[in-house]
């Protein structure tokens, strides 16, 4: 097209065709056990092979961006809780980062460490849900009740203790966090971290290295690095292709620059790699929590912020590494108490697009394995 001298890294077959093809048509969802919510995927198959797949969204659309234009900034934090409801902490955090960036307020160090601790706990909780539901997708029921019902429940108990809520926290506020951790909370987190190492070993024997599980997921749904970047894939899905990319390292926010941790990467970007990267990430999160607990000193947890405040005219974009990838908030302010325009860059929505090309050519029974490994939350896809 424009530049003849460059070689496009995006292969032409990457672009999906919308023309309906002949063959058997299967409408997977919106009421199907494996679509993790209300997603519908329209699939046409030629025998066992998928020839086209079109995700159909919007069943959970709640007009968050429009609502935000009518709310004050602190009120919007409540809306962000409902986006990725499995990782509400990082949603709060990302929005607050964007507003704080525009207002240029300083955050007390203790608040920043608390944010890191709850953010990483949230990542573990979210990956626990992934682990459980992916197990169910593959047909193993026990990991679900172990990871979802035992470990995640303990994290939710910790959250309940620190902010009173179990799912929609509204804990991270503009300028700091809602409240300091109650007495003894840090010791409980330490105890949990210690025990979680053992539980992760249990997951490995139960699922990760189970031959049937590996057979179902290895070499299935392979994604190349170029393809992943071109489609804007972020988070564990991108890292599974072997590409070291993590907002916590590339564009450090909070106090992540003071903490040492690794970015686990996969080898070939198949379903098993995507799963394995998440398991490894839980280990890294445990390390981060330990370090943050060590470095945290007593102090204030809220910066100097007026009760009612205005954000200066202008625009700002801040993003962070949510459990599902690069979550960003783009805010345009006209100086009034509510944003003029707020755009959410949702990792699930962007990651989900690749299904259009990723599912093609795989067997029908692999569809579930691939869909589950992308790990989407419909609350964030539809907003």
């Amino acid at each position: 097209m424009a530049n003849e001298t460059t070689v496009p890294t995006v292969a032409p077959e990457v672009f999906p065709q919308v023309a309906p093809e002949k063959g058997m048509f299967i409408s997977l969802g919106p009421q199907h056990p494996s679509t993790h919510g209300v997603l519908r995927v329209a699939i046409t198959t030629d025998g066992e092979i998928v020839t086209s797949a079109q995700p159909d969204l919007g069943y959970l659309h709640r007009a968050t961006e429009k609502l935000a234009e009518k709310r004050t900034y602190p009120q919007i934090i409540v809306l962000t809780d409902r986006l990725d409801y499995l990782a509400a902490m990082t949603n709060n955090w990302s929005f607050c980062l964007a507003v704080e960036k525009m207002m240029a307020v300083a955050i007390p160090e203790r608040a920043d460490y608390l944010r890191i601790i709850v953010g990483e706990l949230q990542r573990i909780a979210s990956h626990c849900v992934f682990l459980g539901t992916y197990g169910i997708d593959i047909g193993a029921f026990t990991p679900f009740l172990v990871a979802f019902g035992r470990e995640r429940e303990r994290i939710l108990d910790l959250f309940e203790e620190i902010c009173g809520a179990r799912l929609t926290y509204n804990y991270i506020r503009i300028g700091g966090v809602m409240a300091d951790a109650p007495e003894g909370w840090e010791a409980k987190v330490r105890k949990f971290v210690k025990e979680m190492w053992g539980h992760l070993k249990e997951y490995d024997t139960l699922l990760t290295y189970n031959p049937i599980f590996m057979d179902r997921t290895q070499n299935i749904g392979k994604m190349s690095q170029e393809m992943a970047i071109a489609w804007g894939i972020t988070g564990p899905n991108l890292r599974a292709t072997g590409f070291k990319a993590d907002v916590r390292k590339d564009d450090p926010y909070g106090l992540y620059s003071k903490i040492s941790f690794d970015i686990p990467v996969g080898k070939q970007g198949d379903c098993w790699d995507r799963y394995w990267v998440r398991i490894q990430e839980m280990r890294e999160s445990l390390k981060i929590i330990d370090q943050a607990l060590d470095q945290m000193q007593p102090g204030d947890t809220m910066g100097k912020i007026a009760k009612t405040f205005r954000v200066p005219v202008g625009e700002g974009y801040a993003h962070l590494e949510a459990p599902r990838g690069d979550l960003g908030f783009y805010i345009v302010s006209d100086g009034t108490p509510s944003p003029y325009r707020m755009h959410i860059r949702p990792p699930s929505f962007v990651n989900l697009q690749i299904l259009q090309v990723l599912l093609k050519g795989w067997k029908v029974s692999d569809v579930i394995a691939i869909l589950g490994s992308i790990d989407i939350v419909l609350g964030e896809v539809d907003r």
Partner: protein
Amino acid sequence: MTAAEILSTIQAKYPGLQEIPKVLGQARGDELYLSVSAAELHALCQFVRFDPGLSFDYLSFVTSVDWKTHFEVVYYLVSTLHKHKLVLKVKVEDRTNPEVPTISTVWPTADWQEREIYDMMGIKFKGHYNLRRILLPDDWEGFPLRKDYAPKPDRYD
């Protein structure tokens, strides 16, 4: 590359392009902001995507803002190789039939994001292979994120 270096690299190829300067007191990140015309957009995107020095291979997001008099489409580009950023802004004056060329042929990730902008703000992306509503029902009237959108009263109003 710093913002100045990116600007000079781009201006060597497209001398007409101007940076959007930061107004005093305005809140804004330290990314390079460029104003692009709709006609130039596609070629420029091809250039910044495949130029080895710039290599903006990752389109973080595409969005649009309704400024009442005109629309503004915002492209936020990141290079995963050089870790530098670039913001492109396209001004669309025509409110009745706003049109911008698609860049989903450069970054496939723009596919659904452009569809969402079309869905919410009614900006058409010329050359997009599948420009349909994505989140709202196909028979929805109007574009909700426009500032002049008046929701139809339903039975609860």
